[in-house]
């Protein structure tokens, strides 16, 4: 038995190490690319490290960048666990931010302690709605969610451009010829508290707390159990009496909600206004996609997504420093992020092979109870009936 345990412990260690090995592999490929660009990779990576962790301010910036990645990533943990591929993080962030910003620009007579939570909640709901539309389309109209979330991203970007050029434009900009598409600045009392002198804001802490809550949701509640069950085997879930369609919608609603929160927090914690350069990445800073990367890296586990977000936040912040010091475009890091994703999903094969082996042994020993899925207490009667 102890031999069995030590084997499992070793297997766990490898599981944890795989993403790290994948990152190292990607950085090595990056080193080759840097050499091809005639840049000393050691120098470049040192600049990155300093940019991300070299000072109190650098570290704070890393955490500021990590916050939206974590929030979007939490939503991804939920939806991907439910086998719903939500790539609409961009749109959900935008709509959440738009909705939350309206609150701050409207309730100007209200005290900050009331406006901030309302705004965050409205952002959460905004994202939930934007995610819910593809959810309903998938569950009830059989429209593939990859497709609809992509379309919803494009629509959200145009919606943002329209709102910031028109109804929500900063009144002072509306009078100027330049007409920069941005909203007015939020009142000072409406801003999330900061850890001065850095830009690190309360949102980072909120995101970490939410990570714990999402963990509880997924593994300690019936909702979470059912979302995961539907994700693993929709047919079996249906036979077990789970209303599969409802949980598909729920997965996308929750996923969108966290992205929406990420969006509104960018406004209330970092920029204090919404501004658009017309593109999808302008406002979101590519957090819509990088959040997916972080969640995958954290093996779709909310707690694992915390260090993963910090890592990718560090890469993004470090890339800017690298660009300044050794003149390598930060686009290199986008490419490396892509490689990390590819390497991480490719390395999954080891884990799957081992699981299969374990399952074979377990079946042989006739103790094949899947510990991840104890019977759903609420549903047992239906199964019996």
């Amino acid at each position, binding site marked *: 038995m102890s031999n069995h345990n030590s084997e499992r412990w070793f297997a766990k260690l490898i599981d944890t190490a795989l993403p790290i090995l994948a990152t190292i592999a990607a950085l090595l490929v990056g080193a080759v690319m840097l050499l091809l660009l005639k840049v000393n990779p050691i120098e470049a990576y040192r600049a990155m490290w300093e940019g991300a962790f070299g000072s109190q301010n650098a570290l704070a910036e890393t955490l500021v960048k990590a916050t939206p990645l974590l929030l979007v990533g939490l939503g991804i943990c939920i939806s991907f666990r439910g086998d719903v591929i939500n790539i609409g993080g961009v749109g959900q962030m935008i709509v959440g931010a738009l909705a939350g910003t309206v609150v701050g620009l409207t309730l100007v007579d209200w005290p900050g302690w009331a406006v901030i939570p309302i705004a965050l909640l409205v952002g959460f709901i905004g994202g939930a709605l934007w995610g819910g539309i593809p959810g309903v389309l998938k569950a009830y109209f059989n429209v593939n969610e990859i497709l609809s979330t992509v379309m919803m991203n*494009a629509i959200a970007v145009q919606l943002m451009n329209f709102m910031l050029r028109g109804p929500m434009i900063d009144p002072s900009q509306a009078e100027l010829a330049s007409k920069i598409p941005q909203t007015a600045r939020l009142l000072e009392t409406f801003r999330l508290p900061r850890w001065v002198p850095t830009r690190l804001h309360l949102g980072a802490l909120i995101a970490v707390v939410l990570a714990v809550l999402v963990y509880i949701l997924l593994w300690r509640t019936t909702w979470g159990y059912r979302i995961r069950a539907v994700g693993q085997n929709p047919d079996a879930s249906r036979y077990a009496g789970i209303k599969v369609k409802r949980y598909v919608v729920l997965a996308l609603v929750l996923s969108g909600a966290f992205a929406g929160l990420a969006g509104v927090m960018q406004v209330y914690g970092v920029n204090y206004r919404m501004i658009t350069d017309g593109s999808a990445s302008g406002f979101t800073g590519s957090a819509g*996609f990088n959040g997916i990367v972080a969640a995958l890296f954290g093996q779709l586990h909310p707690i694992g997504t915390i260090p993963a977000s910090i890592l990718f936040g560090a890469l993004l912040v470090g890339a800017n420093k690298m660009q300044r010091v050794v003149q390598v*475009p930060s686009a290199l890091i986008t*490419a490396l992020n*892509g490689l990390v994703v590819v390497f991480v999903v490719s390395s999954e094969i080891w884990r799957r092979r081992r699981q299969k082996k374990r399952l074979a042994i377990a079946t042989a020993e006739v103790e094949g109870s899947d510990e991840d899925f104890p019977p759903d207490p609420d549903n047992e009667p239906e199964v019996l009936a």
Partner: protein
Amino acid sequence: MISDLFSMTVLVGILASGIRLATPYLYAGIGETFSQRSGVLNLGVEGQMLLGAFAAFYVALTTENLWLGVLAAIVVGGLMGLAMAFVTINLQAEQGISGIGFYLFGLGLSDLLFQKMLGTVETVKGFPKVHIPILSDIPVIGEIFFRQNVLVYIAFALVPLAWFLLNKTTLGLKIKAVGENPEAADSLGVSVIRVRYFTVILGGVLSGVAGASLSIALLNVFQQNLTSGLGFIAVALVYFGAWRPWGVLGGALLFSLVNSLQLWVQVLGIPIPSDIAVMMPYILTILVLVLAVSRVRPPSALTKIFEREE
């Protein structure tokens, strides 16, 4: 001013540019149709297009030979397809997610190469319009269909070709069998792995050409994120077209005609906010999907890992 829309010249203009705009969707969509019919979802189309677009542009700019540019896009797209095939078929990685990885890789790398090798936005003299003799002289129809550049003609020729390949050849039969029931196909001696390698690499090649059609035939520039979501739309159009080449054609035409219409609306100064107008093709695509596709089911083995029982 709304009445301007209905003048003959404007209508012809809308239709002609709609046909032209459909080109990249056709290449990428037909390619994606092949890989999905064999059971592989390639979400990396956008990344393949970006690298293809850059390769074509760079080679065309430096060698002043457009066909060499297309060849470069084919090679680059094919290599990306090869990598995608290895990762999803041999390493059995989750398809949707690896696709996102390849998208980010292509997005970053094409941007990096653009900044390092070009530095600024330059233009290239792209494929000229080819007037097809006699046909291009037919009033209206000639102007709409037969005064396009050569990559447009090839794109439209691909549709019946793809249909023929999928439905009238042994290879097509194998592709569909592998996508519907790989275990059965395998037991009948069809190499699932070889068929999927073929379709995924073909998908990469066509995505590369789709990128080239943007950078050296339609827009004749390269810049960061040139495709801006176009590759994802192409994937969407495959679902829209219910995994059939003619369906993809229908989707591509609908999407790009509406797009062309909204561009003309802006050109004519009709007072609809441009941002709202740009939304139209996307909203319309979703609506049509809700109404139409819900009855068609995807290839049974799509996104499923195939593992040969030893």
